[in-house]
């Protein structure tokens, strides 16, 4: 009995020692950035609130100061009361819009705000609701539960063509995020992060860097194994015009969410706009060729397929829509990701770099001015 207890105690001490060593290794030597995301049962994922931290970003290979407001978004503190003569534009998006790799003044939302305010007689506040891994369903919920409380005049959804369709669907993505689904009665319902999931991950996220590290490692391993079995990542099947019923259902769900969004914003007297955020593979031919090779025969890979599909969805729902693809392709005329002078993405293949953000902000500003899609407020 005593021997058994001793062995158990020894194993417990071993386990504690191992965990301590792993935690120390992660804290001192890891290059995996620590997570700054919080899971929230109300609006899904957001950044840790009131964050002010310098953080190494491997994609841009530099240290970036990450500041968030009390709501957990990369923006200044928002006032509940909208000042007179000011228009509010709520911008939803995923990691492209959160842009952890860049200082705040260089990202699309800040650049767009500056451009909008350059026009005489208008004053706009662009509110950045971008957060990595968010789905359009989460954005709808965040509008209902949070953004609408700030009295926005317009909502701009920056739809990432490379990942948003898969992120919207629980059939295609297992990320623990908040998303919508079509219930048995045909109604749209929300599937959230459970309270237990939120609490356990929050505690471990906060106190253990190793917990965060192992998630990163396991994800990477799973991805590599999947790539061994199926070279084309599932999310890239979004370019396959013959991608099968799961993607068809994901598109139908996306359309339903956007229609619902349109209905709720119309009811509030808020303009709803959609912009598609291109992926590097749509801009650079060499990258798309690789995807095509990975997809193999039997697939119909089309660079413009998600944009065409999204345009049709928006047209049907009566939502003004802009595809940024033509502007990005015009800025990279050779469409070769190897040309440094035509790089619009970090490392040529990730999120937008500074030039990409500038280009996107300029194109959206010009579109808004030309189409008069924004309501005439703030005069």
């Amino acid at each position: 009995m005593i021997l058994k207890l001793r062995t158990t105690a020894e194993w417990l001490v071993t386990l504690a020692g191992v965990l301590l060593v792993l935690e120390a290794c992660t804290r001192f030597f890891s290059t995996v950035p620590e997570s700054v995301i919080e899971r929230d049962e109300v609006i899904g994922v957001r950044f840790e609130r009131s964050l002010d931290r310098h953080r190494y970003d491997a994609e841009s290979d530099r240290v970036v100061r990450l500041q968030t407001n009390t709501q957990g978004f990369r923006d200044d503190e928002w006032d509940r009361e909208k000042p007179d003569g000011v228009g509010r534009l709520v911008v939803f998006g995923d990691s492209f819009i959160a842009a952890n790799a860049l200082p705040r003044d260089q990202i699309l939302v800040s650049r767009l705000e500056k451009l909008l305010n350059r026009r005489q007689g208008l004053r706009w506040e662009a509110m950045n609701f971008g957060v990595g891994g968010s789905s359009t369903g989460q954005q709808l919920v965040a509008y209902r539960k949070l953004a609408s409380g700030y009295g926005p005049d317009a909502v701009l959804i920056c739809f990432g063509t490379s990942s948003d369709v898969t992120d919207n669907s629980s059939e295609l993505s297992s990320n623990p995020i908040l998303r919508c689904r079509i219930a048995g009665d045909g109604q749209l319902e929300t599937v959230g992060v459970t309270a237990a999931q939120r609490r356990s991950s929050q505690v471990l996220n906060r106190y253990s860097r190793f917990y965060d590290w192992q998630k990163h490692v396991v994800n990477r391993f799973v991805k590599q194994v999947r790539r061994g079995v199926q070279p084309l990542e599932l999310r890239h099947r979004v370019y396959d015009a013959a991608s099968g019923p799961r993607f068809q259902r994901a598109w139908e769900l996306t359309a339903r969410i956007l229609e619902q969004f349109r209905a709720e914003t119309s009811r509030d007297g808020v303009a709803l706009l959609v912009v598609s955020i291109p992926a590097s593979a749509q801009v650079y031919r060499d990258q798309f060729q690789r995807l095509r090779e990975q997809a193999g025969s039997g697939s119909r890979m089309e660079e413009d397929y998600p944009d065409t599909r999204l345009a049709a969805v928006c047209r049907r729902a009566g939502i003004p829509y802009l595809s940024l693809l033509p502007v990005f392709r015009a800025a990279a005329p050779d469409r070769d990701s190897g040309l440094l002078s035509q790089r619009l993405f970090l490392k040529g293949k990730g999120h937008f770099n500074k030039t990409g953000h500038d280009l996107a902000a300029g194109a959206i500003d010009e579109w808004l001015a030309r189409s008069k899609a924004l309501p005439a407020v703030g005069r």
Partner: protein
Amino acid sequence: MSFTSVAFLVFLPVVWAIYWCLRRREWQNLLLVCASYVFYGWWDARFCVLMLTSSLVDYGLGLALGRSAPDSETGTGFRRRRLLLALSLAANLGLLGVFKYFGFFVDSFQAAATLLGWSPGALTLEIILPVGISFYTFQTLSYTIDIYRGRLQPTRNLVDYLAFVSFFPQLVAGPIERASRLLPQFQQPRCWDREAFGEGLRQMLWGLFKKVVIADSLAGPVAAAFASPETAGGPRLMVATVLFAYQIYCDFSGYSDIAIGTARLFGIGLMRNFAYPYFSQSIVEFWQRWHISLSTWFRDYVYIALGGNRGRRMQTWRNAVVTFLVSGLWHGAAWRFVAWGGLHGVSLVALPRPPEKVSIDHPGGTRLVPAPVVLLRMILVFTLVCAFWVFFRADSLADAWLVWKKIATEIHVAEGYRELVLEYQGRGPLFGITHLLVVFLVIEWLSRHKPHPVDFPGWPRPLRWSVYSALAWFVIEYGGRGDANPFIYFQF
């Protein structure tokens, strides 16, 4: 399939689990043969055909050699045996000649002809070099030579023989095993041994640490300096040369550790391939500690075949230099490898050896702090070995010569050192690498009496497991940084 790939991470446990579920050794051997061909065919399925052909030729010749026992009274059978051995040599060296040296010989012939004022027509063939061909052809050669010399009886069991040739842990980069050592292990039943299993895992872990954490971290700065030796300063080239010495050591000995550890998981013992070579006190000792399986192969089958040390001193020296020239050519089909081998051969015969013989288990002696003369000898040998590595790493003979020249002429230029110090202070790549190497050197020195450092008999379990977890953490962290390089010796 590389040891550091995700595919291997899945492949190994699956094969291991099935292997120990099979009780009969015949089935275990058959599984190992199938698994080894899958492992090898992962690079290119055509390579398997080549290996199978080479194996079958030597299997058949081995049986024929076994049947034609010489009769010393009548004198018959000797000629036939010599013919069979010649066939084996021709088949194996022919394979190497075509797949590894064809381009080299044609280029050399054309260069020589051009020098003589004759311009032969261009002849180029795009021949891919099958991974590990130099290793398994040497292994099969040793099989037929040992049968010819009467040291080994040929096996009639084809599966046992194929398992010996293709055993996946040591297939592509050694250790090059002798049939007399490895084949009997496939002919005996293997028993599950928990101790051996743990020891195998520990050695694999240490091998992975050396390869993934150290060798791959050193690869970038080394490649950057050697890519353009004309623009790099002398001090940088000097540092890059030292880094390369550790890169190739950690890369290759790391591979060997993983191979030996993996083999132990299957109850098979492979020979030791490295024994802390950078603590050698002479070039002779260095070659007793570096790539032991190859140097003993060349000793037994080339040096001794040439006469070894049986003749006059000059003949012994000639035999040693020729053996090293051939060894250089074995490493790569380029004149710089021949030069590298030649330099080692010449320094081996020309430099004095320390008076006392050093035990293989105690490199640098048994003292914690080495005696000054021992330290001096180790530093001198390491410097010499580093100087020769330049020929191994440079892209051409001209580049190697340029590196030597730049190091020699710019060694006193302060600007070059300032640049390195600034890079270190600015926490550039040199910062982490320096710390890593210092820690590695201390660990190696303290564990030099053991086959590998990850062996802590007598340590309490929490401490042992903490060290294992820390090593595993480093392997996973560094392995995921995306700067993995293929094993250097795969190209040979």
